[in-house]
């Protein structure tokens, strides 16, 4: 075969870089010495050698650049704290003792008996992500696969293992301890659950911060700090899921508009303008009023109405990219449309959407807080920062500063953190600012 013969010739001169560069295809034909099997028997594909310099794609480089900025680091630090609280909420604040000894000498672990599947899943996923990220042994794709597989397994196990009681009496153990039935008990850092209304201690309602309740209590007697810690979950999920939905829709719609241009673009833009003119808050009010309060419904509705910005960004990028040579080369190589749109064009045009998404998360958190503040957000027993704010003015007890200040600070800091990250990402991706050193 001609190809094989050529390869043998090339293989011998391949060691001589100078000759290759200078001679190109006309590289000197070495005498046939090496057996031809050399290249057949050698495993032709191996992962890159560890001694090679670190190579990063443009997106990875932008990611690294983003988090070398101080603002983004501060923002990421705050988000990390919120994530930590969200994951470990039941282990930080719970009315159930971690371990306790009954009068007859038995040891019991009520905290673990009262865990929900989601609590177990979050902790397990958190540690598996952390472990895989720190070991750095797997590639990006393999890591994602490992995390997904681990999560699925843990979720199954969690539903099988956990079996929380249907009727929870939060004060049960406090009462038993006071009666002397429990001789020794070890509690979590904050010994109150988010929904523990202190039915045994009615005098604890609406207390200002004290040594017992570090951030005070609500009008129902719930511990503020515990409630704020448990509210981290809502704050994180509403932002991520709503923004995820909007980014997904925005990328698909914007990508199709930008790639096909012409009539499809014209029609798409008009539909987009119609959706953009829907007042979001009023739509959400109408939906919660008619379908009831649900955090999932809220996430979906926020996602469904806020994709227009992402679609505009992606459309503009794709209009620019579709004329690029590598896209034309991809079409000329016979690649299918799906590959051209999402494999070749998207990674080159996703940057503005990533920036927009971090602002979008902040916006979704604010929107949820607004709704909850208006009393139309989550159900009263689901903890959320906006819902706590609502309590600051309701109940006819005047202005309770601790109920307003702490959740307000939490909302402010979280929104600010996402905006800091978004700003840093925009700077990192801005080619005009790239020439720094």
């Amino acid at each position, binding site marked *: 075969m*001609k*190809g094989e013969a*050529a*390869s043998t010739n*090339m*293989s011998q001169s*391949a060691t*001589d*870089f100078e000759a*290759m*560069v200078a*001679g*190109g*295809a*006309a*590289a000197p034909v070495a005498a046939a010495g090496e057996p031809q099997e050399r290249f057949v028997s050698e495993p*032709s*594909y*191996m992962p*890159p*050698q560890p001694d*090679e310099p670190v*190579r990063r*794609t*443009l*997106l990875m480089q932008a990611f690294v650049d983003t988090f070398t900025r101080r603002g983004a680091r501060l923002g990421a630090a705050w988000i990390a704290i919120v994530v930590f609280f969200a994951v470990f909420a039941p282990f930080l604040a719970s009315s159930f003792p971690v371990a306790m000894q009954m009068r007859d000498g038995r040891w019991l672990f009520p905290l673990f008996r009262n865990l929900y599947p989601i609590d177990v899943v979050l902790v397990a996923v958190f540690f598996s992500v952390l472990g895989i990220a720190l070991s750095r042994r797997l590639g990006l794709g393999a890591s994602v696969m490992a995390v997904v597989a681990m999560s699925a397994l843990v979720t199954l196990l969690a539903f099988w293992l956990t079996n929380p009681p249907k009727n929870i009496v939060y004060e049960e153990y406090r009462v038993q301890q006071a009666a002397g039935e429990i001789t020794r008990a070890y509690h979590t850092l904050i010994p109150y659950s988010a929904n523990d209304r202190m039915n045994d201690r009615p005098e604890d309602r609406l207390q200002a911060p004290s040594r017992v309740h570090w951030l005070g209590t609500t009008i129902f007697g719930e511990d503020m700090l515990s409630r704020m810690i448990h509210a981290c979950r809502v704050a994180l999920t509403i932002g991520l899921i709503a923004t995820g939905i909007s980014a997904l829709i925005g990328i698909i719609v914007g990508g199709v508009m930008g790639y096909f241009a*012409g009539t499809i673009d014209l029609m798409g833009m008009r539909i987009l303008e119609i959706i953009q003119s829907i007042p979001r808050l009023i739509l959400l009010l109408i939906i919660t009023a008619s379908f009831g309060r649900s955090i999932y419904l809220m996430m979906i509705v926020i996602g469904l109405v806020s994709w227009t910005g992402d679609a505009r960004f992606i459309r503009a990028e794709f209009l620019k990219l579709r004329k*690029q*040579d*590598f896209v*034309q*080369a*991809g*079409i*000329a*190589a*016979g*690649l*299918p449309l799906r*590959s051209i749109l999402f*494999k*070749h064009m998207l*990674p*080159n045009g996703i940057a503005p959407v990533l920036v927009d998404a971090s602002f979008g998360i902040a916006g979704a958190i604010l929107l949820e807080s607004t709704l909850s503040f208006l009393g139309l957000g989550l159900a009263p027993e689901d903890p959320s920062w906006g819902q706590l704010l609502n309590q600051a003015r309701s109940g006819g007890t005047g202005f309770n500063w601790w109920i307003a200040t702490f959740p307000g600070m939490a909302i402010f800091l979280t929104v600010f953190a996402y905006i800091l990250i978004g700003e840093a990402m925009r700077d990192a991706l801005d080619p005009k600012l790239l020439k720094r050193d």
Partner: protein
Amino acid sequence: MAQPLLEIKNLNVAFETSRGDIRPVRDASLTIYPGQTVALVGESGCGKSVTAMSILRLIPSPPGKVLGGQINFSGRDLLALSEKEMRSVRGKDIAMIFQEPMTSLNPVYTIGDQIVEAITLHQGVGSRKAYEIAEQSLRDVGIADPHRRLHSYPHEMSGGMRQRVMIAMALSCQPKLLIADEPTTALDVTIQAQILELLRKLQRERGMAILLITHDLGVVAENADVVAVMYASRIVEVATVERLFDKPMHPYTEGLFRSVPKLGADVQRLDTIAGTVPNPARFPSGCKFHPRCHRSHQLAASAPAEQVVEIASSGQKLKVLKRCTVDEPIAREIEPKHWAACHQITGYDSAALTMTSLMHKREVNANVIESDSRDAGKVIQEAVT
């Protein structure tokens, strides 16, 4: 007689604009035989790239549309295929390399990933096997240490290296026809020579046909078997490379050759073709070359007054033959195996309108050149010692 690999018959392409249709390609006919290199030569904007793009049906539509004609490739009319069938032709049977290697590779993927994607798509092999093929094709185009290079990103390579990668990618699926759209324009001269030598070598080894689009006559002389000259949307002259360089017939081709610098010739200024390339939206009537045609101008000077008209071209008043402004010539076979489109060539009116089909392969091949240069080296060595 072998069957032609590609046969373009009377291809007409139009672009719809708000100010009427633009016709960048009119009645283009071209035949390519297996293993042949056909050069399509012409100025910027004469329609050569549009012709090449329409072979792969890469013309954006709208605004572009093919008004008529046939593009037969191995017996199939490419213009009649569905978009899905066309996708299996692109990259597999007909591959294309572009002018600008710096931007023809996707910056976010390694070159290995990009080559492998096309291989797995067209050859239906697993990714491990595809990496082997990709490494082999990088080796074939003379990239040093192809195994490591598979994991390089395009920005880590020079222009010449990237063009080699583009060629490796185009040839990894063993296409029967390679369309090279000005493959060396963006490269410096030494790299140009290497890339063209590489293309010749790969063509010899694999017997594929090349449609070489260029405006560089040196590239044509070195590589082409058959040359088609294009001017303002029409193919005006077709001949074998030897014949065309020996005896150009069309005044535009003559002008092109006069404007090439020659070794040994002592001239103050190079000849140019007077005037400018016509705007495709406002082509002149009749022969599109008549405002710039020296032959028409010269003949008009001595022709009877009723055969001459005066035209205004780029601010100047010029006398040209009336026939040239009215009647548009079509390429006819004026001498055997030599087509040209000009009324003023002796024998044009009686020449036959035949399909421009030339099964010609140039005599010179690279082996001869190599042995020549080796001999030359010996001579020089002897002279030194």
